[in-house]
């Protein structure tokens, strides 16, 4: 592995940008020798391997489609979301199925099902991305602290992380939502907080692995300050597992939003289309109109699958020891 593995400025399309954790100075990106070695960098090699991996391409396509639908929702969706404009066409025992006006029919409240699904993507994307940024930011900051200083700082930080890990994520989310009250913000904080210990452990473990490596020893013996050894040598080399985890976390977040919605902790605003809530609402009509539950369920699974596929492929392509 070459000494420098900064993501190329252009970045492979679709690869998640590594948000510098709070406290990371901008000097990271300005490291002069980084530019010279890009040709042989880990990321360049990874990009080459990703392009040849069918699983990565499939994942990237799903992710791209999901993001496009989410961003362009107002253009794609045929109607306004959650309008319940056709509420009078819905009876307690049946829901109008597909027609020329409504490609997928109506939902149980009399809104256009396709519109709901399209806008649901938007909600999932926003909550997923924000909560991942929260989890990655705080988690990486903690991991950096523990990994850079070691010693008692490491012990103290890791104990806190252990405590957080000892609460299952769903319960952590429930307790946070209980304090903040159900709202999209609570949802994002809750899902993000549950990811903090995972990111912290990953970055710390990965940085501890770098501490004893030769290039760190070389950099220290050249008289580089610890700050610069940590920030420009150890951190960039430790980031790839964190970035991979970030991609995978997006998948978890999408599923977790649905679970929290199911528990009644989702966005309290009924006019916001959300896949998890659509699933919950469809449960009464499971026997007569299973498509009302199956379609949002499939949307959740497919978008989560896209992120998982891409994240796994990214992990494999970044791991120099992993060859299929």
């Amino acid at each position, binding site marked *: 592995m070459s000494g420098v593995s900064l993501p190329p400025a252009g970045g492979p399309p679709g690869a998640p940008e590594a948000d510098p954790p709070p406290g990371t100075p901008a000097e990271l990106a300005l490291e002069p020798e980084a530019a010279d070695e890009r040709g042989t960098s880990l990321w360049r090699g990874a990009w080459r391997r990703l392009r040849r991996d069918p699983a990565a391409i499939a994942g990237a396509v799903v992710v791209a489609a999901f993001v496009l639908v989410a961003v362009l929702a107002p253009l794609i969706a045929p109607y306004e979301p959650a309008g319940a404009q056709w509420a009078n066409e819905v009876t307690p025992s049946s829901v109008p199925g597909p027609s020329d006006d409504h490609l997928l029919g109506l939902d149980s409240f009399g809104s256009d099902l396709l519109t709901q699904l399209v806008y649901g993507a938007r909600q999932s994307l926003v909550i997923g991305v924000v909560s991942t940024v929260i989890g990655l930011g705080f988690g990486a900051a903690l991991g950096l602290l523990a990994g850079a200083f070691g010693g008692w700082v490491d012990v103290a930080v890791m104990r806190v992380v252990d405590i957080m890990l000892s609460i299952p994520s769903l319960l952590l989310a429930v307790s946070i939502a209980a304090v903040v009250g159900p709202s999209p913000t609570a949802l994002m904080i809750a899902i993000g907080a549950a990811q903090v210990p995972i990111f912290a452990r990953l970055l710390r473990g990965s940085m501890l692995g770098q501490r004893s490596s030769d290039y760190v020893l070389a950099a220290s013996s050249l008289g580089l300050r610890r700050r610069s050894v940590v920030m420009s040598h150890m951190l960039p080399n430790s980031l790839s597992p964190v970035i991979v985890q970030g991609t995978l976390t997006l998948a978890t977040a999408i599923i977790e939003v649905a*679970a929290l919605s199911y528990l009644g902790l989702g966005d309290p605003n009924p006019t916001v289309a959300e896949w998890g809530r659509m699933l919950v609402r469809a449960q009464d009509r499971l026997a007569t109109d299973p498509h009302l539950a199956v379609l949002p369920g499939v949307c959740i699974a*497919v978008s989560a699958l896209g992120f998982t596929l891409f994240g796994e492929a990214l992990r494999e392509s970044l791991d120099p020891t992993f060859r299929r």
Partner: protein
Amino acid sequence: MLRFVVRRLALLVPVLLGLSVLLFAWLRALPGDPARTLLGERATPAAVERITQAYGFDRPLPAQYVTYLGNLLTGDLGTSSRTGEPVVDSFLLRFPATIELALAALLVAVVLGIPLGYLAARRHGSALDTFLVGGSLLGTVVPVFFLAYLLKLVFAVQLGWLPTAGRQDPRIDATHVTNFFVLDGLLTREWDASFDALVHLVLPAIALGTIPLAIIVRITRASVLEVTGQDYVRTAEAKGLARSLVRRRHVLRNAMLPVLTTVGLQTGLLLSGAVLTETVFAINGIGSYLFDSISTLDYPVLQGFILFIALVYALVNLVVDVGYGVVDPRVRVS
């Protein structure tokens, strides 16, 4: 070995203490008067006054924490503001159902997952491998409650092969000793009761076990693949050891370490998944108890639940660590 266990137990103390501080802070962070929060909306002023006295809410925070910790240590988790029953009693009554479900799910995951993962690694690159890897990917992205619905819809409602809800047919007059229904049937020799409880467990266990199953398949596969490529395996083969012996003693034993860790880490997943599964299948465990408590914001129950789960989680991981020590002698020394 004993020293190892004691040391691991000692490490639990700071984690649980820290957790109690967090929970204490959490209760205080809730909006409004803590006594009223504990008692619920309809509490009388006299009751609020009594609780304020009992828990010392009028005293300084450190003193309050000491009281709080003392209550926890004596097993007093307070009283549910919804049902008025002591939280600990409700838990003990409902916990067997959840444990039974979680164990059944874990059994599904381990008994199927390890052989399937091993098979995938042995047939590395084959169609079977691709199928198993693909299937396990799918297994991790399906929301638990969605899967539970689908299973219930297809196998219980439409095909009618399995019961839709509950833990046992109410028409069966079963004696309950431990509240583990399957075990109770065996203990009292009421075989039909035991069998009926088992049948009721099938769908919930599959629903809850799918994610751990998928994870175990993947970890086992990756782990076996990695170990198979190690030098010591080649050495063992080169010196002419029987294939089966190499596989059992060298590959499997070493490959099981990460799998064991993963199984331990599934506990949290199983317990939170149980909340969702129990709700779908109307199982009267702590999951459905929690579900009811969330909507009414029953803080004593929520708090007790978190503490309970954290304790179980910590203990399971202790067992896993000790198991690790049994499988891998190096762990005991370090």
